[in-house]
């Protein structure tokens, strides 16, 4: 089969294990796969090549979704698309499991970060806040100056201010696979991944060349 780029999983949480050298490693446990190919995109039909895969069991699907997944014969809950150049031999319904990864591989993980709501500049951008003493009052968490005066007469676009934080698509790159257990559909990744427990993650081979 063609080179499969990635897999969809669910974050189970973090724990720690010891490696062979006896050093403690922080790991994130991910229930990854089994995923099934839901659609194969081709140059002729879609203008580019990609594989859409699905994960999990949906309780309910609306009719367009049912129609889309009819040929897979499954009720897939989460669909994600992975760009691959080689779709030779990939067919709808093919299963993908964690055997595409092995310990030592480097992966990128995409998830939705925890939502923090509307946050001030100190939390959102790491601003220092104002002085606590020297006669100051009500300036403790203020952002400070946000620009000039008559010139330029406006606040520049992109000026960092308070606002909505979190709940964004975040990619963490170059994480190391510590363990890939096909029987339990379990993936252990070194370090933290975005989002809360039970969040849906996209895990793909890293796009970073970098060190091995």
């Amino acid at each position: 089969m063609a080179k499969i780029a990635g897999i969809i999983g669910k974050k189970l949480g973090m724990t720690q294990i010891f490696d062979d050298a006896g050093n403690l490693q922080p790991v994130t446990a991910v229930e990854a796969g089994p995923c099934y190919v839901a659609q194969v995109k081709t140059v002729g039909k879609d203008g580019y090549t990609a594989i859409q895969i699905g994960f999990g069991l949906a309780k309910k699907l609306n009719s367009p979704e049912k129609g889309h997944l009819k040929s897979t014969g499954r009720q897939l809950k989460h669909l994600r698309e992975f760009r691959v150049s080689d779709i030779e031999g990939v067919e709808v319904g093919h299963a993908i499991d964690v055997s595409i990864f092995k310990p030592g591989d480097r992966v990128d993980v995409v998830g939705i970060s925890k939502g923090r709501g509307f946050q001030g500049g100190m939390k959102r951008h790491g601003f220092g806040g104002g002085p606590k003493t020297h006669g100051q009052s009500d300036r403790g968490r203020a952002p400070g100056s946000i620009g000039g005066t008559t010139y330029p007469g406006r606040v520049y676009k992109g000026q960092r201010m308070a606002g909505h934080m979190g709940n964004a698509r975040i990619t963490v790159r170059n994480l190391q696979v510590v363990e890939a257990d096909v029987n339990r559909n379990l993936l252990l990744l070194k370090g933290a991944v975005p989002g809360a427990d039970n969040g849906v993650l996209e895990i793909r081979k890293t796009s970073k060349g970098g060190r091995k």
Partner: protein
Amino acid sequence: MSKDLKWLVSQEPNPNIAPLAPGATVKVGYRIKEGDKERTQNFQGLVIRVRNGTAGSFTVRQVLYGIGVERTFFFASPKIERVEVIQQGRVRRARLYYLRGMSAKASRAKLRSKD
């Protein structure tokens, strides 16, 4: 930790670690690497804290040349060769941090053995 992932990462309790409780005087054999040689280093002292769970650990306190030394070991660490309990002292707290402020003599008096 938000969730118990014990079922995930299989952990056989190390049979060479004797059951521990705060107040016990223990000898810990810990493998250390010196250059390319490996040897076992013994650390003897008093257990002042035991933490359970997947990341369970215990802290051993010893007074060396008048300086208090505390080392924390993970139960799951493969570097622990063995843990022997030498004596079990009678204590009334789970965390024996109050011993830090005491002289060795005073802490010995506190821990006169059970009977």
